[in-house]
């Protein structure tokens, strides 16, 4: 067992968790303790060394600083939201009138508890996802969203995780369980944020979703933390018969950022749209691993990930589509495009297809290049400065995906945020005032 594994177990022992979560915590701790620590030879972690994590010493849980956390820019201040600061629930920052469908594990009634016990840790395969095992071992609280059959969640639910600086590095766990019964509908936005100060925390997040038959699920997950923060996260979804999921994710880089998406088509006719954007810069790293399992016939997947990789940063993308035997009439497409904007940037991409059924149509594509010089020339010849042209083209590259993000409020907020991010020299963000987001949308 590596030193970090031991530390993590010690941290689990420091927690006070409800008794009924003990079986999950114990099995998680056992798996975590027995797991081999990933090295460069571990395929799942080939391009993403865990050294930043190993080099940091975590020996206590964090104490949230609510005053600081309250200063972050909420995506939609009006929407219902649950806020966690350094892994602790912050009632003062959360909405007072949360929908009845939402409950924290700590306050779950008997029925909700039964539901949690039934599903929590069941969607994710913690044998295959090391940090999911850790999340199980660390679960002392979390959020359950349960939408009963045929019902619709009134508005989008924001689950916000804020990191604030601490005197020493601290870890934080974040756990979300979403259960949509048949025919239910819900939209959830997960927002990972941090205050701007340097901080060397570690966020381990895990979202499990059960989408029932004919249910519709819209999901956004944006990771916009400060770059010193380490984040390893996972989204694991089971899709029921004729269900629909529209997923969107965006990540800025950090010292170590690894997000896994695991979607299982469990019922015939399920549809998945999953779009993602990653924008590492400086010396950051973003690693997206997605895996779509087509276990049954007649399902569709459309997955698009795009990245702009700048400075000395690195992006890793691994998109696997697995068609099981008998999953006939599957339609699956995956596209991954990357823009390298600096000589020192690096991208490692691996789109994978594993197919065991013959009557399917599957395709994947991946490209790596820089901004098209002729397009740049065209814009410059129209009197637009080179830098500005670069910003415009970069934005155009990801705008398509942004436009399909299922939550309009998030779209507008991200446009503003990205304009600042991409047009780092201030004079380049002037098109903010000229309403470029309108002209682009």
């Amino acid at each position, binding site marked *: 067992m590596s030193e970090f594994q031991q530390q993590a177990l010690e941290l689990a022992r420091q927690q006070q968790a409800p008794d009924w979560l003990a079986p999950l915590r114990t099995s998680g701790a056992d798996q975590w303790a027995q797991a081999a620590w990933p090295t460069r030879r571990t395929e799942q972690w080939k391009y993403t060394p865990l050294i930043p994590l190993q080099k940091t010493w975590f020996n206590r849980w964090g104490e949230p600083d609510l005053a600081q956390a309250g200063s972050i820019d909420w995506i939609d201040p009006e929407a219902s939201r649950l806020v966690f600061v350094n892994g602790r629930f912050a009632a003062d920052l959360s909405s007072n009138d949360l929908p009845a469908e939402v409950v924290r594990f700590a306050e779950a009634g008997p029925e909700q508890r039964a539901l949690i016990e039934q599903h929590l840790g069941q969607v994710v395969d913690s044998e295959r996802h090391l940090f999911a095992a850790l999340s199980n071992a660390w679960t002392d609280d979390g959020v359950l969203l349960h939408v009963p059959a045929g019902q619709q969640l009134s508005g989008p639910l924001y689950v916000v995780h804020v990191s604030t600086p601490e005197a020493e590095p601290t870890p934080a766990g974040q756990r979300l369980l979403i259960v949509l019964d048949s025919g239910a509908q819900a939209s959830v936005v997960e927002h990972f944020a941090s205050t701007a100060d340097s901080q060397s925390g570690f966020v381990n997040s895990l979202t499990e979703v059960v989408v029932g038959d004919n249910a519709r699920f819209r999901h956004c997950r944006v990771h916009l933390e400060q770059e010193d923060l380490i984040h390893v996260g996972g989204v694991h979804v089971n899709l029921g018969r004729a269900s629909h999921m529209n997923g969107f994710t965006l990540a800025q880089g950090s010292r170590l950022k690894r997000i896994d998406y695991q979607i299982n088509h469990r019922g015939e006719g399920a549809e998945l749209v999953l779009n993602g954007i990653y924008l590492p810069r400086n010396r950051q790293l973003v690693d997206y691993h997605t895996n779509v399992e087509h276990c049954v016939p007649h399902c569709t997947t459309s997955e698009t990930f795009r990245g702009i990789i700048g400075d000395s940063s690195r992006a890793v993308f691994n998109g696997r589509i697995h068609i099981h035997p008998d999953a006939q009439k599957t339609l699956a497409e995956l596209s991954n495009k990357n823009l390298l904007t600096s*000589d*020192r940037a*690096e991208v*490692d*991409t691996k789109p994978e297809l*594993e197919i065991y059924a013959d009557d*399917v149509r599957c395709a994947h594509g991946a490209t790596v290049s820089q901004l098209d010089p002729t397009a740049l020339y065209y814009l410059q010849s129209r009197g637009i400065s080179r830098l500005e042209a670069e910003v415009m083209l970069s934005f155009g590259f990801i705008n398509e995906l942004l436009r399909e993000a299922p939550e309009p409020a998030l779209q507008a907020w991200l446009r503003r945020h990205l304009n600042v991010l991409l047009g780092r020299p201030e004079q380049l963000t002037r098109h903010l005032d000229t309403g470029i987001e309108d002209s682009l949308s």
Partner: protein
Amino acid sequence: MSEQVDNLIRKEYAAGFHTLIDADTLPPGLNEDVVRFISAKKGEPDWMTEWRLKAYRAWTEMAEPDWAKVKYPPIDFQKISYYSAPKSMDDKPQSLDEVDPELLATYEKLGIPLHEQEMLAGVAVDAVFDSVSVVTTFRKKLWEAGVIFCPISEAVHDYPELVKKYLGSVVPQKDNYFAALNSAVFSDGSFVYIPKGVRCPMELSTYFRINEMNTGQFERTLIVAEEGSHVSYLEGCTAPMRDENQLHAAVVELVALDNAEIKYSTVQNWYPGDAEGKGGIYNFVTKRGICHTNAKISWTQVETGSAVTWKYPSCILKGDNSVGEFYSVALTNNYQQADTGTKMIHLGKNTRSTIIAKGISAGKSDSSYRGLVRINAGAEGARNFTQCDSLLIGDQCGAHTFPYIESRNPSAIVEHEATTSRVSDDQMFLCQQRGLDAEKAVSMIVNGFCREVFRELPMEFAVEAGKLLEVSLEGSVG
């Protein structure tokens, strides 16, 4: 220190193996003495023996790779005999009547002439019939051009400087498990040297090299193309090859110096095992070429045989403006498994690579494309295009794609696309409506699917390859 070590090694050498030297066949097992024995049997100079031993020592510290998507029972490397004298005439079948009729039927379908059938089936024939004169003519022509084309065991004696300089320069002894094993115990293979500015007057083929049939299971090929030279090399043949050795671990090294061009074509049709998948050949091959400035290496392969194929012909594009190409058709049927692809390592500026891989899976087989395109930071303006298409025939087989793309230069453009589909009902209907039976229709569609690759094959191979696919796919339809 190193002197002491050297002395120690020499000491062992003096005592270790002498008793063995008279034996014709070694008992199963592999150790340093066996490596020395093989080397001594071939009368190799000391440096060659040392080279082999270095490989052997590296091999003992390596682990067998397990990342490929193939399954086979564990190989006991101590149960294999690493040297046996060539079969004597008496042991061989005396005429075609003694040869497996199934094999003959396949030869018939491929349209192989009778005397070639005898040679392929290993029938004892006294003189090597017509081909003796053919070979003599060939040798003379090559000699005039200054081209060296001989067994590598001869090259070790006749051209030690060249062998010393280039052997292991592209695939080092420690490269991987099977390459290390090959380096330690390689039986024989070809050595080709094309002098500066020479365009090899004919396509070189292993087929025309005398003794080709006895190169054994650990073949080693080294091709060196000097500046501005050109050579096209053909390996294997379309006829099914039986071999009593189940494990084959070959190494091929290509060196294309400035402005040189090497074209390497392979048709591999080793015994794939019976319909239940028993007894087929394991083919674990390491093939790699290095391109210097403006050089070009082109790999073309048609893989239809072997029970398990593990093969990644690669190009290191070291020089500026160098070009690497990989065209592949891999067909698997019954219980065959193929994990094949390529690596294109872009180091020089304006290097270009093209990868066209076609995988066809039928029966209960599994075929995977596994490739790496790496653009290093210095590969300004590099360009790669990759296309992998898979065709599935039947619902019991699998087709997989694992492309790795690593890019570190913004001016490089890398494109990868892959599709998987099956022979569509519409296509079948159209063909059958025109009076073709189902089997013929599938073979036509498959041939069309592979056309981009066949086009790269030398003329006579291309025709045979089409036929070969047809024969290999037999029984997979209907």
